[in-house]
């Protein structure tokens, strides 16, 4: 018990400290490469370094590597987690430098899941609601790349406001951490502990008013980490329920835009900004998003919208706990 607690604590602290130490380096790197994003929801439109997600992915990866060596936890599942998530970070970094084709991106993100399949880091007997554990030995490896595309894009679609992706992902990661810990599944819990540590530090810099943006490198890395942990820990259904707000947001956007298209080609935006307040765009041509739904009743400030997104994520987390412990045999 004490060894488990020490492992979780070491993973959490190490990733948090590493991420914290990396912040100045990432800010300098953004300056040198000119990777800044305009914070469009503020009237003064500040330029913010947009590759802050590097602090999360290096922090978690190094922490996982060190702690797995120290605690003798390094196996094919840990290596598959590291390789898959690194590949997702590379895709994200590529998109931060140069926008990817909207059809190529989901294909690349599906390929990112292949190390999990080829290294056998999955358990093809998922526990399904009402029907229990079922053997899906042929179908499961086919579903892994699809799940990677859906989850990484869903988390990516939530990165629209200061702290929106970071705080909602923190809620989802904490839920998976809690479920795996209660089930006594230590490996995924320890991977989650590392991710929580980095996300907590990053949240400090990404909260309103943001000093760092996660960028695609951050959001795709976090999405890949979440789905990798869920597959390794056999808590796929709980994760899908925990990130229902992100998934609905993603499909609303795809459906309203009639397919996979770049957001830059939109004729109308989902919300408009006036005096630092967000209001839903009432035009029928504007795509449907969670933020547009939240601001449809009245105008809200950016931090108010993020607070509401976090409340919705907590609600989804409760539904995930109910699903895992009451509907899955």
């Amino acid at each position, binding site marked *: 018990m004490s060894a488990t607690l020490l492992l979780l604590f070491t993973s959490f602290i190490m990733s948090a400290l590493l991420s914290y130490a990396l912040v100045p380096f990432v800010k300098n790197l953004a300056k040198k490469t000119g990777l800044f994003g305009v914070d*469009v929801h503020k009237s003064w439109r500040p330029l913010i370094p947009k590759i802050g997600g590097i602090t999360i992915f290096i922090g978690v990866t190094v922490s996982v590597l060190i702690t797995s060596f120290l605690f003798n936890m390094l196996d094919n599942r840990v290596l598959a987690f590291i390789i898959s998530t690194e590949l997702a970070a590379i895709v994200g970094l590529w998109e931060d430098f140069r926008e990817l084709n909207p059809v190529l991106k989901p294909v690349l993100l599906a390929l990112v899941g292949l190390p999990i399949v080829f290294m056998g880091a999955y358990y093809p007997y998922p526990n399904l609601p009402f029907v229990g554990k079922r053997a899906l030995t042929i179908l499961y490896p086919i579903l892994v790349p699809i799940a990677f595309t859906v989850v990484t894009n869903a988390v990516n679609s939530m990165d629209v406001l200061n702290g929106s992706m970071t705080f909602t992902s923190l809620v989802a990661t904490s839920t998976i951490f809690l479920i795996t810990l209660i089930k006594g599944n230590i490996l995924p819990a320890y991977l989650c502990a590392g991710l929580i540590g980095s996300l907590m530090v990053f949240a400090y810099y990404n909260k309103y008013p943001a000093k760092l943006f996660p960028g695609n490198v951050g959001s795709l890395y976090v999405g890949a980490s979440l789905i990798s942990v869920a597959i390794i820990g056999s808590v796929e259904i709980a994760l899908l329920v925990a990130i*229902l707000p992100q998934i609905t947001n993603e*499909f609303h956007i795809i459906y309203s835009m009639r397919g996979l298209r770049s957001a830059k080609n939109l004729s109308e935006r*989902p919300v408009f900004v006036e005096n630092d307040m967000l209001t*839903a765009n009432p035009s029928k041509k504007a795509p*449907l998003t969670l933020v547009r739904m939240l601001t449809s009743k*009245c105008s809200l400030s950016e931090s108010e919208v993020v607070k509401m997104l976090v409340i919705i994520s907590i609600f989804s987390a409760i539904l995930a706990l109910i699903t895992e412990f009451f509907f899955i045999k």
Partner: protein
Amino acid sequence: MLAVFLLIVWGMFLCVLYLMSVFVIPLSMPYHEPLLISIYRIGVAFIVLIVWVIAWHRLAIFWLYRILRRSNRYGMSRQNDSPS
């Protein structure tokens, strides 16, 4: 209100998972079915999933425009550059 929407989506998700399990799980059984029946099972499961996505998207559109209509902002159009 969005919590109610999520509750509906969640309830539908559980039903969809059950239906998909009913259609897909026989594929993993040791006995051999004709290939056409296997393809039919995967096709039906896929259609169930698509119907689920379309159902809650339509529900969200209906809910959003009802609120916008109440606030008399429906149909107006403005340009801006917010990505949210």
